[in-house]
């Protein structure tokens, strides 16, 4: 099958103090090795679906068919949760030296900004540098799919372009990985994406 994700009639419901919320029914086909954009208002269901397809949410999920990649990663918006505060930049990059897709020097080539920062700890880096470090650590692992939830929030324009370029050229085109970007401000991302999925009130309202 050429699809990375194949979903039919997926429904997810949960209860909060102020009422019941839900997602679906959802039907979605995402081909392998594509860059996908999920967008929509807060609470529209894009993050919930992202967590389901990366196996972060498994309870109360009902479906007729659900095919998702074996090795996936959900990159959330909280930078501190995506880094190891006790490891230097260099130690982060060396962490997967054996099973990493890239050698350490290749990572330094991809992200020359880390050359001067290799002995620094995350608490000595700016928010953007931390985000870049966690991005760099995570893409070293051989995942089939990564969902980046608001990854561009703390990045300036130049670094955002670098990250987007690496996602498109390295992850999607070269490694044939499926990458989903969740973003509120997506104008500069949209031209790079093969598919754009819009969410509204827990449903997919539009696919382009």
């Amino acid at each position, binding site marked *: 099958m050429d699809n990375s994700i194949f979903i039919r009639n997926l429904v997810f419901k949960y209860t909060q103090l102020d009422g019941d919320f839900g997602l679906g029914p959802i039907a979605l086909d995402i081909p392998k090795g594509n860059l996908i954009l999920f967008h929509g208002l807060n609470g529209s269901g894009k993050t919930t679906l992202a967590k389901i397809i990366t196996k972060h949410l498994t309870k109360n999920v009902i479906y007729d068919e659900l095919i998702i990649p074996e*090795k996936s*990663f*959900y990159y959330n918006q909280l930078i501190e*949760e*995506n*880094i*190891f*505060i*006790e*490891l230097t930049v260099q*130690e982060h990059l*060396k*962490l*997967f*030296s054996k099973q990493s897709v890239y050698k350490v020097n290749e990572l330094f080539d991809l992200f020359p900004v880390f050359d001067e920062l290799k002995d620094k*700890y995350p608490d000595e880096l700016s928010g953007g540098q931390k985000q870049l470090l966690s991005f760099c*650590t*995570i893409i070293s*692992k051989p995942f089939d799919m990564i969902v980046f939830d608001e990854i561009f929030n703390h990045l300036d324009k130049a670094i955002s372009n670098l990250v987007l370029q690496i996602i498109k050229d390295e992850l999607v085109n070269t490694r044939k990985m499926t990458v989903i970007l969740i973003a509120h401000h997506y104008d500069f991302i949209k031209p790079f994406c093969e598919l754009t999925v819009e969410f509204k009130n827990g449903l997919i309202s539009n696919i382009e």
Partner: protein
Amino acid sequence: MNILNLNLIIDVLIYSLIPLGLWISFRIMRYPDLAIEQVFVLGGVIFGLISEFTTNPLAIVPFFIIASIILGILISFFRYRLSLNPIILSLIFSYIFFSLSLFLMGRPNLSLLEYYENNIPKNTLLVFALSILIVLSIAYHYFFKSNKGSKVIATGCNPDLSKRIGLQSFLHGSIGISMSYFIVMIGGALYSLKLRNADISYGGGFLLMSIFIVLICRLFINRISFIKNALAIIFATLIYTVILQFIISLNFPSELTRGFYAIMLLLLVIFSPKSKIKLF
């Protein structure tokens, strides 16, 4: 150097193995190990039981390695596989280790006079304790600087991310806790060797002392460097022990010394910068 001073230095070297072990579990693994006193006692008990068969220190060490690996795997299973609350887990294991020590000894204490008929010369004990500290510090320092060591540190400081990126948190958690327990059990063994006796009550007060010392060192040393922290811990243990001796020499009621240190610890936590004292 008179005997009292030599005694004090030997005590400091032995005692410092406990906060050093706690530093690994507390600071690196983010596991606030309330069972550390009982691990210390267990070290003494295992030492006592093995002494029946051999008094060769090199033959005894493998037993501590095996015991610490078993306990490390056990704790790591509950901590990383079943995601149990670390404080509750360490409290439960504190009682389990206490019972285990009693069960192994079959009574509250075990005399080692039969196996070590003569008092161990102070100089021998000093060299022994110092050598162990130096060898362990260097070995642990280079381990934590290695890629495997980085994975243990990563598992300790962010277990959730470690799991998500497939870092084998159970394995690396086991390594971290085992290393902590090995060092503490060696301390227990040295203490029992010095007193030629293993006793269920030997751990009393060491948890308080260790937390105090680990927190003090956290204030001054921000990074995980084993040798730097080991030196700081030995120095802090020396200060702690000297103050304790001084207080006792002033005829301060001995039953109040733990209360005194508990209040000192409370003041330390209250008045330290929050960013520094925060361990988790």
